[in-house]
C-alpha cells in the first residue's frame, strides 16, 4: 500500500477517519470492560457464596476450615496471615527502601546512580516463583539454624523475601519524590551550615513526604497481593497467630491451594475463592486509592 492513493482518498471520505476514531475509543472501552468484568465476576460469585455463609460469620469468624465436614469460613485467619507477612515485609522494605532512596538521591553521583538504580530494579523484575524457591532453599534453612523451633513453612521467611521484592517499589518512588525537591532548598540548608545528613533528614525528606508515604502504601499493597513466594514459603495452614515463625496461610495462598485442588464448580469451596478474592481486591484497591490520594493531597507547595 503506497501513501499516494491514501492521500487522494482522504478528502473524499471523512468516514474512514470516523471509523478509526470509533475503533480507538472501543479499545479504550475494553479497559473499562476489564474493570467491569472484575467487579461483576467477584461480586456475582460472592453473592452466591454469602447466600450460604452469612457475611458476619465470614468477616468475624476465627476459623477457616473449608474442607472439614462441618466447614467454617471465618476469613480472619487468612487476613491475619496476609497482614502478618505484609507487615514483616514492610519492616524489611520500608527502612531499606527509604535509606536506599536517600543514598541514591542525596549521596550517589550520577555514575553510581546510573549503575545502582537499574541493578536494584532487577529485584522487581525477578518472577515471584523464584523468590519462593530462594525462601524455601536458602532463607528458611538459615532461619531454622538461627531461631530453633522455626517451622519448614513460616511467615518470617516469606516476609523477608517479599520485603526484598518490594524494596525497588519503595526506593524508586521515594527517590523520584526526593529528586523532585528543588536544589535551591538543599543549597539554602547547606548554606546555613547544615551537614548533608541534616539536609537530607530535615529538608529533603519532609519535602518529599507525600511521595514517600505513597511508596510505602503501594509497596505494602504489592506485598498483600503477592502470591507465589508466600504460597511456597509460608505454607497452607490457616492460623490466627502473630508468631512469625509459625506457618500461616494468606488469602492469596488459599486461592492457589483451592485452584490446585480443582474445586468443582458450584460448590461452596469454589465460591469461597471469589469471596476471598473480593476481600483481597478491596483491600489492595483501598491502599492504591489511598496512595493516589496522599500524592494529590499532600503535594508539597514548593515553587
Amino acid at each position: 500500500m503506497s501513501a499516494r492513493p491514501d492521500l487522494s482518498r482522504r478528502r473524499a471520505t471523512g468516514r474512514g477517519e470516523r471509523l478509526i476514531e470509533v475503533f480507538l475509543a472501543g479499545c479504550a472501552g475494553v479497559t473499562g470492560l476489564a474493570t467491569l468484568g472484575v467487579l461483576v465476576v467477584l461480586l456475582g460469585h460472592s453473592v452466591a457464596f454469602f447466600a450460604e455463609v452469612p457475611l458476619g460469620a465470614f468477616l468475624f469468624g476465627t476459623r477457616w476450615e473449608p474442607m472439614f465436614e462441618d466447614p467454617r469460613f471465618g476469613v480472619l485467619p487468612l487476613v491475619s496471615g496476609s497482614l502478618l507477612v505484609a507487615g514483616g515485609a514492610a519492616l524489611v522494605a520500608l527502612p531499606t527502601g527509604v535509606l536506599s532512596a536517600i543514598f541514591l538521591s542525596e549521596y550517589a553521583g550520577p555514575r553510581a546512580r546510573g549503575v545502582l538504580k537499574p541493578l536494584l530494579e532487577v529485584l522487581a523484575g525477578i518472577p515471584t516463583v523464584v523468590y519462593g524457591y530462594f525462601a524455601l532453599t536458602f532463607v528458611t534453612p538459615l532461619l531454622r539454624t538461627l531461631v530453633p523451633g522455626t517451622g519448614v513453612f513460616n511467615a518470617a521467611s516469606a516476609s523477608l523475601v517479599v520485603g526484598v521484592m518490594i524494596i525497588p517499589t519503595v526506593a524508586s518512588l521515594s527517590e523520584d519524590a526526593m529528586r523532585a525537591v528543588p536544589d535551591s532548598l538543599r543549597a539554602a540548608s547547606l548554606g546555613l551550615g547544615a551537614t548533608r545528613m541534616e539536609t537530607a533528614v530535615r529538608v529533603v525528606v519532609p519535602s518529599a513526604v507525600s511521595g514517600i508515604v505513597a511508596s510505602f502504601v503501594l509497596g505494602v499493597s504489592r506485598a498483600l497481593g503477592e502470591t507465589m513466594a508466600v504460597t511456597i514459603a509460608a505454607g497452607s495452614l490457616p492460623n490466627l497467630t502473630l508468631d512469625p515463625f509459625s506457618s500461616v496461610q494468606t488469602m492469596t495462598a488459599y486461592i492457589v491451594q483451592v485452584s490446585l485442588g480443582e474445586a468443582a464448580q458450584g460448590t461452596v469451596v469454589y465460591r469461597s475463592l471469589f469471596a476471598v478474592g473480593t476481600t483481597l481486591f478491596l483491600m489492595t484497591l483501598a491502599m492504591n486509592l489511598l496512595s493516589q490520594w496522599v500524592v494529590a493531597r499532600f503535594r508539597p507547595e514548593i515553587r
Partner: protein
Amino acid sequence: MSEHRRRRRRALGGAFAAVCAASTLLGLLALGLLIGDVLLDGASQLDTDFLTRYASRVPEQAGVRAALAGSAWVVGLTALVSFPISVGAAVWLEEYAPDRWTTRALRTNVANLAGVPSIVYGILGLAVFVRALGLGHSVLSGALTLALLVMPILVLTTQEAIRAVPSTLREAAYALGATRWQVVSRQVLPAAAPGILTGTILALSRAVGETAPLILVGAVGFVAFSPSGPLDSFTVLPVQIFGWITRPQPEFRALAAAGIIVLLTLLLLANSAAILLRDRHSARNAR
C-alpha cells in the same frame, strides 16, 4: 558552636551516609545471594538435553521443552491480543478523548487496574474464559487472562511514550493540512515507537514470569507434550518450576533451580533488548 559538637555532627553525618550506602547494598546483596543460590543448585542439571526433553516422573530425564513451548504460545498470543488494544486505547486517551468525566474515569481506572494483584486476574480468567466462555484449561484462556493483566501496564507506558512526543510535531502536521489520523499514524506513532516497544518488552517479560494467574486458569505442572493449537492444554515455565519446587525429593529441587536459570536468562535477554532499544533511541534524540 564548640569544636566538639561540630566534630560529633560530622561523625554522625558520616555514619548516616554509611547506613544509607549499606541499605542500598543490602538489596544488591540479596540479589547476589539469590542468583548464587540458584546457580549453585541448578547449574549441574543444565545441559541442552534439559531444554529439549519433556517433563518426566524420573528427575534425570525431565526437561522444560513443553514448558518453553507453552510459554512461547501463551506470551505470543498475549502480545497479539494486548498490543493492538493497548496502543489503540492509549492513542485514544492521549490524542482523541474529549475532556469529559468518562475520559477522566477511564484514566483513573487504568491506573487502578495496574495495581490489581495478578491473582485476581486469575480468578477473573477462571470464571470468564475457562468456565463461562467454555475455553477450558487452554492456552487461549491463559493468554487472554495475561492479556488483561498486561493491558493496563501497556496502556500506561504507551501513554507516556505518546506524551513525550513534542507537540510542535503535531502542530506542524496539522498546519500542513493533515487529518487527525494522519498526524497520529505518520508523526506521533513513529516518534513514540521506541518507547512503546520498550514498554511492550517489559510488560511481556512480566507475563513470562507470571505464575499464579496461570495456575488458576489451569496450567498444570506435568505436561508431556507441547501445545499445537490455542485450545490445547499447557504448562508454562514458571508453573513447571513451581511444580518441581513443591516435590519433596531433592532431585526435583535441582530441576527447579535449572528451570529458574533458563527463565532468568530469557528475562535477562528480553530486558537487555529493551534497554538497548531505549539507549539507542535516546542517543538519536540527543543528536
